[in-house]
């Protein structure tokens, strides 16, 4: 592992730990607010889900940078790059949509629609990624 890869890995771990700490602190604060009757049960639930959506969006935003080293793999036409970009965009938009649904929609609708949204983003990523990886197999790469 080169020094550049190590510092990149250290940055990713630091980001992950920071996000984990934020979620734990937010959960504890919301639990306290709920117990002290500052927030109703629904308010605390909405706030936590909005945070989850924003965390998903933040990870989606970083996805193209985090997997940039994969671009050094030989594959014609920049397929890997497009998979990473499509994945990043779909996860970021899904995260923002998830947060918006939990902020604005009725709870029963947000519960179902937010899951459907994230599920669709995962399906786009897996479907597009699978198709592109099939094209990027060494044998397929040579035949292009």
């Amino acid at each position: 592992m080169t020094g550049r890869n190590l510092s990149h890995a250290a940055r990713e771990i630091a980001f992950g730990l920071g996000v984990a700490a934020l979620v734990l602190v937010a959960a504890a604060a919301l639990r306290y607010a709920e117990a002290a009757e500052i927030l109703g049960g629904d308010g605390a639930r909405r706030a936590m889900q909005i945070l989850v959506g924003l965390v998903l969006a933040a990870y989606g935003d970083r996805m193209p940078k985090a997997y940039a080293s994969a671009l050094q793999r030989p594959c014609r036409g920049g397929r890997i790059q497009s998979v990473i970009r499509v994945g990043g965009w779909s996860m970021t938009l899904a995260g923002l949509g998830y947060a918006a649904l939990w902020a604005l929609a009725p709870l029963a609708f947000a519960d179902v629609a937010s899951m459907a949204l994230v599920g669709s983003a995962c399906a786009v990523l897996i479907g597009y990624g699978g198709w592109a990886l099939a094209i990027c197999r060494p044998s397929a790469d040579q035949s292009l």
Partner: protein
Amino acid sequence: MSLVFKALADPTRRRVLQLLKERPMTAGEIAEHVDIAKPTLSAHFAILREAGLVGSEKSGKTVTYWLNASVLEEALLAFADTVGVGLKPGRQRVAAAKKEAAS
């Protein structure tokens, strides 16, 4: 973040990033699409690398560049391109006319 804004403020650098959106390219391939001297292009690459918007790998005499932008940075690139940030007023009109003609 100010490095990113500085990098995106120049139309030539934005053109390079748009080219790299298609696929990783060598410096020579990019130079074919951009009508400027190679030393100037190298200076643009240095600014893009410093901002973390492109990655590069040297293999022999060839340097390959790839897009290393986050989703937000890519959205900023699209916005700067749409608004025409960094273009002089006259060139902005020419770019808008070209866009209109193309559509």
